[in-house]
């Protein structure tokens, strides 16, 4: 088994704030998806969600707010998944709830030192 980093990307939600019920439903979908993977003993680390706000530090101490000027989608969170191969990892990612809101999952194998 190898470890793969799943990076969840989606466009920042600039629409009206979600209602508590919508947030609950979205939370359940994520937990179902993680639960499915964990039930197969393939979740190495559930990871975290990320706040949308951030800063980027560039050469010459240039600091800008947020990474959004360069990529349209921002990273919403990440998890660590165990899988036999990149193909299997990709198969697992097919059920990710981020896909339903037009986002994507980037999968990268960890290059362990």
């Amino acid at each position, binding site marked *: 088994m190898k470890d793969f980093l799943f990076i969840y990307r989606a466009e920042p939600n600039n629409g009206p704030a979600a209602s508590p019920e919508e947030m609950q439903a979205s939370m359940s979908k994520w*937990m179902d998806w*993680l*639960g499915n993977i*964990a*039930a197969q*003993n393939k*979740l190495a680390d559930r990871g975290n969600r990320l706040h949308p706000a951030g800063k980027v530090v560039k050469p010459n101490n240039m600091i800008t707010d947020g990474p959004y000027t360069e990529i349209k989608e921002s990273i919403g969170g990440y998890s660590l998944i165990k899988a036999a191969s990149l193909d299997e990892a990709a198969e697992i990612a097919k059920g990710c709830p981020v896909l339903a809101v037009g986002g994507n999952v980037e999968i990268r194998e960890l290059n362990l030192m």
Partner: protein
Amino acid sequence: MQQPELIPHLFRTEYRKITAVLCKLFGIEHIEIAEDIASDTFLTASETWSIKGLPENPVAWLYMVAKNKAKNYLKRDALFSQKIAQQIKASAEQAETIEIDLSAQNITDSQLQMMFAICHPGIPAEAQVGLALRILCGFGINEIADAFLTNKEAINKRLFRAKEKLRADNIAIELPSAAEINKRLETVLTTLYLLFNEGYYSAHTNTTVRKELCAEAMRLTHLLTENEATNLPAVNALLALMSFQSSRFEARTNEQGETILYEDQDENLWDKDLIDQGKYFMDAAFDNNAGLGKYHLEAAIAFFHTSKTDTKEKWENILQLYNRLLVTEYSPIAALNRTYALAKARSKEEAITEAEKLDLEDNHLYHALLGELYSGIDNLAAAGHLKKALALAQSDADRTVLRKKLSLLTGNDTP
């Protein structure tokens, strides 16, 4: 209580107290001497009482004899008494004046401290459970062997190695510091959880043995809730879990010792007092905004099972609890139970898709689950899985249940 039953009864309740107090006094490296003095006390009791009859207060009599034996030992064994005297900071001549404190407070404190010494992270989990049964619960070697479905020699070996390890690591008999207590408590709770599960889920057909293991696990967990330093949310959550689970003890086997499945159990046989006790400790566990650990989640799941209400909402709650439990820590049994909850909350079809990804082909419960999920959808597949489960099952109790399911499904009796 008559004498023949009284001594085994007192052995069960008092042996562990005397051992804990003496061991605390002598230090962990002399654990066997503490055990010998405690055993010897009961030998003297059975000899004396059979001739002279029962003393007025048998417990006080035992404590007095144990104290005298300990003092005599200290006096007689020069080498031992020098070593011990150094440790307990008294001179060998003063052995007679060494206070052997068998007060209720010191008994409780010593037992609690012994619990932390025995459940030390350096001792293998299986040995911890064995030692806990011997030292903290006063089980005989035969009884432990019986509980583990193994022989006396295996248990003796296991206990010997564990005691060697206690000695080699020079493990102190004390409560860990406040900073360390949460981490050390984890191992203690794991041992108590294993001890309980040994009773609750074991293949053992003798329900008396199983009930005793569960009762002992609960008694020790109770002990932790009674001390301010160890009365922590996770302890209360574990005790809530044990209370909810054991409330069904009377309902889960019939007179022949056969398993009665949850859905077929008579709710009137569920112990309401234990359910209430579970709710009480559950409230305590959720007090002061403590984080939700594994035992909180399991206790919450067990709570939902204290009522047979069968709604989608209930199963949705259970599903989400299992999701969180699995994301925290994987276990095959949690994975299987989660899949069952998925079927109840969503659909059998969705659960079958997920079940077939579980990679638990060697587990009879996996096939039992698929047998359940496929019935009504594809009875041929269901029967196939039930037959595989039957071939893999370890205990007669499991096989009986599976045979019944299979005959219900195929409409005829299978050998």
